[in-house]
C-alpha cells in the first residue's frame, strides 16, 4: 500500500533513503545522498557533544571546591580549553547546518539533492579529518590556552597547541564547503514557482549562515595557522619582543569568532521559525521581517568584533563604534523574537516537546541577548569582561538558545528522518529537566560574575563557593535531562510507533514526502504555488504546496 499524505493512517515508507539504493556500511560511507550525509553528521556531532559535555561536568565538579583539588591546575586548564574547542568547532558550528541543513534543504526546496553531492560527502570527511587531528592533540594532553588561543601565551606554552590549531583549521574547510554548497543549492535548485519570497524561513537563515561561513572562516583559518607557525617556528607575528602585536591576534581572531556565534545562532533561529509555524498551525507573522533580519544579522555581525576588546587598550573611539554597532545587531534578533511571539496570536497552539523547547529558547534568547547588549554598553563590560557574567551570557545563547533549538529540531524532524515517533511524555519530562537544570546552572553564574569571579579560575576565593555549588547542581539536572532524551530517542529509533508522512500536520514543504523520504526525495519536481506554512484554509483541502504528488507505481 503506497503511503499517501492524504490518509490518516501512519505508514512507514517501505522504500526510503535508509534502505535504498543499498544498505551496508560501504554504501553509507560512499553515499551521495544528502539525507544520509546529514544523518552521519548528526551522529558525529552528538558524539562530540557528549565529549564536550563530559568535559563540562568535570569542570563543574572541580568547581565544587574553591581549593586546588581533584586534578592539577594543568589538567583543569586543558579541560576548559578542550570543552570550548570541542563544543564550538566540533558541535555548535556544524550541528544544525551540516546535520539538519543537509537533510532538509533539498526537501524544503523541492530538489533532489544539494548542488554538489560529492562535495557534500567530502565536507563530512574533512570534518572527520579535522576531528581526528584535534583528537590526536587532545590525547597528547591538549592545549591549555583556552579556546581563544590568546597570544603570547598560546605561542609560548609548552602544551600541544599545534594539533588543536590544525584540527580547527581543517574543520574550517568543512564549514566552508558546506556553506558553499548551500548557497549554490539555494540559488539554483529551487523548485519551479518558488521565488525567494516563497522559500521556507529555515532556508533563509541557513543561507545567511552560509554567507558568514564562507566569508569569515578563511580569516580564522589563516589566524590559527599564524599562531601555529609562531608556536612551532617562532616567526614573531604576534610576539612583542620581535615587534609583533599580541592584540592584533585578538582582532583577527574575533573578526571570525564573532560572526561565528551567528553561524551558531542563525541555524537555531532557522529551526525555531519552522517549529513556531507548525505548532501554532499558523503563518509567520512577518515573513519579510524574519527573512531579511537573518541577512541583517549576517551583515552587521561582521562589524562588531571589537566588543571583545574593550579592556585591551583600544581607543575610546573604537570602543564607541563597536559598541553602537553591537546594539544594532541585537535589533535584528529582537525583530525575530517579536515576530515569533506575534505568530502565536490567533494560532492553534499544540504544546508538544518541540514547542516546549521553543518556549525555553525564547526566554533564554531574550534574557541572554539583552545581557549581551548590556555588555556592549562598554562601561559595564569593564567590570564584567572575563568574569562568569560573560560565561553565563554566552551559555544562555549557546545552550539556552542553540541547544534548545537543536533539541526542538531533533524532536520535530525525528518522524521525518526516522519514520517513527518518540514518547511525548518522556520528552516533556526531559524538556522540563533541561530547562530547569539550565536555569540553575547559569543564573548563579551571572551572579558570580557580578561578585567578580574571573573566568578560567582553577581555584577561587571562598566567598564564591555557594553559587558554584548551585551551578554544579543545576548542571547535573541538565545533564540528566539530556541523557534521558538521548535514551528515549535511541529507543524510539527501533521501537517507536510509526509516524506517517506528516504527524504534525505541518504545511512545511518537507512534510510532503513520505517518512522516511525516498532517496530521490521527489520523483517529479513539485511546482510551488503558495508559500510555506499557510494554514488559513479548510482542513480537507489538498496540501497547497505541491501540485504533483509523488506517485508510486503499485
Amino acid at each position, binding site marked *: 500500500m503506497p503511503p499517501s499524505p492524504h490518509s490518516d493512517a501512519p505508514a512507514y515508507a517501505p522504500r526510503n533513503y535508509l534502505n535504498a539504493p543499498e544498505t551496508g556500511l560501504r554504501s553509507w560511507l560512499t553515499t551521495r545522498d544528502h539525507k544520509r550525509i546529514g544523518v552521519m553528521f548528526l551522529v558525529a556531532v552528538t558524539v562530540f557533544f557528549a565529549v564536550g559535555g563530559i568535559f563540562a561536568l568535570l569542570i563543574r565538579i572541580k568547581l565544587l571546591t574553591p581549593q586546588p583539588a581533584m586534578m592539577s591546575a594543568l589538567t583543569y586548564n586543558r579541560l576548559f580549553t578542550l570543552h570550548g574547542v570541542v563544543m564550538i568547532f566540533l558541535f555548535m558550528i556544524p550541528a544544525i547546518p551540516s546535520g539538519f541543513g543537509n537533510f532538509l534543504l533539498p526537501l524544503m526546496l523541492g530538489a*533532489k539533492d544539494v548542488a554538489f553531492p560529492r562535495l557534500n560527502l567530502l565536507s563530512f570527511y574533512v570534518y572527520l579529518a579535522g576531528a581526528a587531528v584535534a583528537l590526536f592533540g587532545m590525547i597528547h594532553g591538549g592545549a591549555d590556552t583556552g579556546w581563544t588561543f590568546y597570544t603570547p601565551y598560546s605561542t609560548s606554552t609548552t602544551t600541544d597547541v599545534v594539533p588543536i590549531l590544525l584540527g580547527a583549521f581543517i574543520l574550517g574547510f568543512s564549514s566552508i564547503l558546506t556553506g558553499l554548497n548551500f548557497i549554490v543549492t539555494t540559488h539554483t535548485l529551487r523548485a519551479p514557482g518558488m521565488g525567494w519570497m516563497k522559500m521556507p524561513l529555515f532556508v533563509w537563515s541557513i543561507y545567511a549562515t552560509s554567507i558568514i561561513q564562507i566569508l569569515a572562516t578563511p580569516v580564522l583559518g589563516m589566524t590559527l595557522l599564524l599562531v601555529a607557525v609562531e608556536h612551532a617556528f617562532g*616567526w614573531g*607575528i604576534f610576539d612583542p619582543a620581535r*615587534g609583533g602585536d599580541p592584540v592584533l591576534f585578538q582582532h583577527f581572531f574575533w573578526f571570525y569568532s564573532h560572526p561565528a556565534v551567528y553561524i551558531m545562532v542563525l541555524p537555531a533561529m532557522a529551526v525555531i521559525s519552522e517549529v513556531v509555524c507548525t505548532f501554532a498551525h499558523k503563518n509567520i507573522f512577518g515573513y519579510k521581517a524574519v527573512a531579511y533580519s537573518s541577512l541583517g544579522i549576517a551583515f552587521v555581525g561582521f562589524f562588531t568584533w571589537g566588543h571583545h576588546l574593550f579592556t585591551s587598550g583600544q581607543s575610546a573611539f573604537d570602543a564607541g563604534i563597536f559598541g553602537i554597532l553591537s546594539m544594532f545587531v541585537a535589533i535584528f534578533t529582537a525583530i525575530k523574537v517579536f515576530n515569533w511571539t506575534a505568530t502565536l496570536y490567533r494560532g492553534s497552539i499544540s504544546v508538544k516537546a518541540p514547542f516546549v523547547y521553543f518556549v525555553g529558547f525564547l526566554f533564554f534568547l531574550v534574557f541572554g541577548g539583552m545581557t549581551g547588549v548590556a555588555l556592549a554598553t562598554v562601561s559595564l563590560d569593564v567590570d564584567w569582561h572575563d568574569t562568569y557574567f560573560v560565561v553565563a551570557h554566552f551559555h544562555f545563547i549557546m545552550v539556552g538558545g542553540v541547544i534548545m533549538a537543536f533539541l526542538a529540531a531533533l524532536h520535530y524532524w525525528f518522524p521525518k528522518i526516522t519514520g517513527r515517533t518518540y514518547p511525548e511524555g518522556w520528552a516533556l519530562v526531559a524538556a522540563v529537566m533541561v530547562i530547569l537544570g539550565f536555569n540553575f546552572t547559569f543564573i548563579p553564574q551571572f551572579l558570580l560574575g557580578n561578585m567578580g569571579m574571573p573566568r578560567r579560575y582553577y581555584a577561587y576565593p571562598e566567598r564564591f563557593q555557594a553559587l558554584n555549588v548551585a551551578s554544579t547542581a543545576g548542571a547535573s539536572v541538565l545533564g540528566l535531562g539530556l541523557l534521558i532524551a538521548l535514551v528515549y530517542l535511541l529507543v524510539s529509533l527501533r521501537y517507536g510507533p510509526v509516524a506517517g508522512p506528516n504527524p504534525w500536520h505541518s504545511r512545511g514543504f518537507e512534510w510532503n514526502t513520505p517518512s522516511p523520504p525516498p532517496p530521490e526525495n521527489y520523483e517529479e519536481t513539485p511546482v510551488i504555488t503558495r508559500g510555506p506554512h499557510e494554514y488559513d484554509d479548510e482542513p480537507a483541502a489538498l496540501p497547497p504546496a505541491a501540485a504533483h504528488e509523488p506517485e508510486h507505481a503499485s
Partner: protein
Amino acid sequence: MQASPLAHHFESLDKQAHAARLAMWIFLATEVLLFTALFAAYSVYRFLYPEGFVQSSRAIETWIGFVNTLVLVTSSFTVATGYGHASRGDGKRTALFFGLSVLLALVFLGFKAVEYTHHFQEGQLPGPYYRFEGVKAPGAPLFFALYFLITGLHAFHVVVGMTVLIVVGVLAFRGRYTVAYHVPVENAALYWHLVDLIWIFVFPLIYLI
C-alpha cells in the same frame, strides 16, 4: 560519444554549469579572504614600522619580482587562450596552452627558489633565524616573516593551480569537454587568474612601496 555529464538532480546542463560557475566564484572569494588576513597583518605592521618595512623592501631584489610578474601575467594569457579553445571544442589546443601555463608557472617557481636562496644567504629569514644586518630600523624581522608567509602561501596556490591545470588539461586532451559543457575548463582558468591576481597585489605591496 561520451556520456552526458548532466547530474540527476539538475534539470539541465545549463543550470548545472551555472551552479558550477557560481560555486567557483564563491570559492575564489574564500581564497581572497585567506590572503586578506595576511595583507591586513602586513598593512598593520607597515603602519607601525614604516622605516623598517621600506628599508627591508629595498633590500630584496625587485627585478626578480618584476620578472615573475611578467611570467605570471603571460601564463594567465595562455590560460585564457586555452579556455577560448575549449569553448570552441578544441580540447587538444586547450591542453597545449594549459601546458604552456604550467611551464611558465615552473619558471615562476624557479625564480622564487633563486630568490629564497638569496634570502637564506643574506640572513633575511623570519623570526629567530633573522641575521640580516642591512636594516637599522626595527620591524625588519616582521617584514621577512610576513614576506615568507605571503609568498609561501602564494607559491602553494601556484602549485595547486598547476595541478588543476594539468588534470583539466589532460582531460581536455582526451576530449572530455565539449562546446556544450566545458565548465571545468572555465573554473580551472578562473582559479589560475585568481592566483595571478593575488600576485598582482603582492608585487607592489612587497617589492615596490
